[in-house]
């Protein structure tokens, strides 16, 4: 048992510099991986909307028609899920938080609306070996590859967002590529000879 056991510490504190930071008079320095806010390199974004779907708190809105990508700053929980999911890696998590404000801040980024219509993914079945890599990489899960049975490669045109992940996945075989959108809809199945 001790009486006023804390005295030493208290006196030491009294006569040494306080631990207090000088924020906001001096800016805060963040560690490099600090998760502060989401940044977008809007030029690379293909408006696939994956980030929007991954976002647990529904902070991201992607409008493919107007080519706008917007984030509700007061709704983003900095989970980084969108960043991890973005097929184009155009999202990054940067240090530093969004400034508090009197309104619910929404940041909107947009791209010029291109004249050309977006293309569609086509498969040169002669090159395809039905490895299934594209299917696995497809964030939309719109590709199915039947390797053992019918030997088909199927794509659901309605679900595909032309993110190009499958093309990247198939770089080795170069079976996939884009073509002009001719309005083809629904499930399209291609057979391997």
């Amino acid at each position, binding site marked *: 048992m001790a009486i006023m056991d804390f005295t030493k510490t208290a006196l030491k504190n009294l006569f040494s510099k306080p*631990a207090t930071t000088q924020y906001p008079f001096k800016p805060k320095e963040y560690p490099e991986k600090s998760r502060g806010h989401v940044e977008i390199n809007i030029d690379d974004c293909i408006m696939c909307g994956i980030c929007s779907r991954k976002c647990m708190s529904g902070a991201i809105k992607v409008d493919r028609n107007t080519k706008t990508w917007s984030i509700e700053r*007061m709704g983003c*929980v900095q989970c980084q899920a969108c960043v991890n999911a973005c097929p184009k890696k155009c999202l990054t998590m940067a240090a530093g938080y969004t400034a*508090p404000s009197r309104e*619910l*801040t929404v940041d909107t980024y947009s791209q010029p609306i291109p004249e050309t219509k977006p293309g569609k993914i086509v498969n040169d079945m002669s090159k395809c070996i039905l490895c299934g890599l594209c299917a696995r990489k497809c964030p939309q899960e719109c590709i199915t590859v039947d390797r053992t049975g019918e030997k088909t490669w199927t794509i659901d045109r309605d679900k595909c967002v032309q993110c190009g992940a499958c093309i990247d996945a198939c770089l080795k075989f170069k079976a996939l590529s884009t073509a002009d959108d001719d309005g083809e809809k629904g499930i399209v199945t291609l057979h391997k000879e």
Partner: protein
Amino acid sequence: MADVTKSPWIMHYDGTSCNGCDIEVLACLTPLYDVERFGVINTGNPKHADILLITGSVNEQNKDVVKQIYEQMTEPKVVCAIGICACNGGVFKDCYNILGGVDKVIPVDIYVPGCAARPEAIIDGVVQSLDLLKEKSKKLKEGK
């Protein structure tokens, strides 16, 4: 001469927060951030407080609590929603027992984002509230 901005007393209510923001609010009082530098005192009593810091969203059971303590605060008063939950419900906004952000129940003046809101952000929020307090107290005087 000194006015409201020199001595903003805060009060903190923890709604349905996950503790994250809640603890960051407390952390503001501790040596590293020490908001008492700005004259902030954490009163815990609505009748003494100028700024209400709410963390977490509102649900069925605490909405009355939030309303009551808001009403018991004296003018001029400012409400800061601390953290995403308080701003709009965050990841929980689809839960069956979440009504949404604090602004569903009482008027929110300052939104402080972050999950969890960083102490720096909370300090910024408080600093912003000061301007608002000044505005409000001016209005109050004119209103009188």
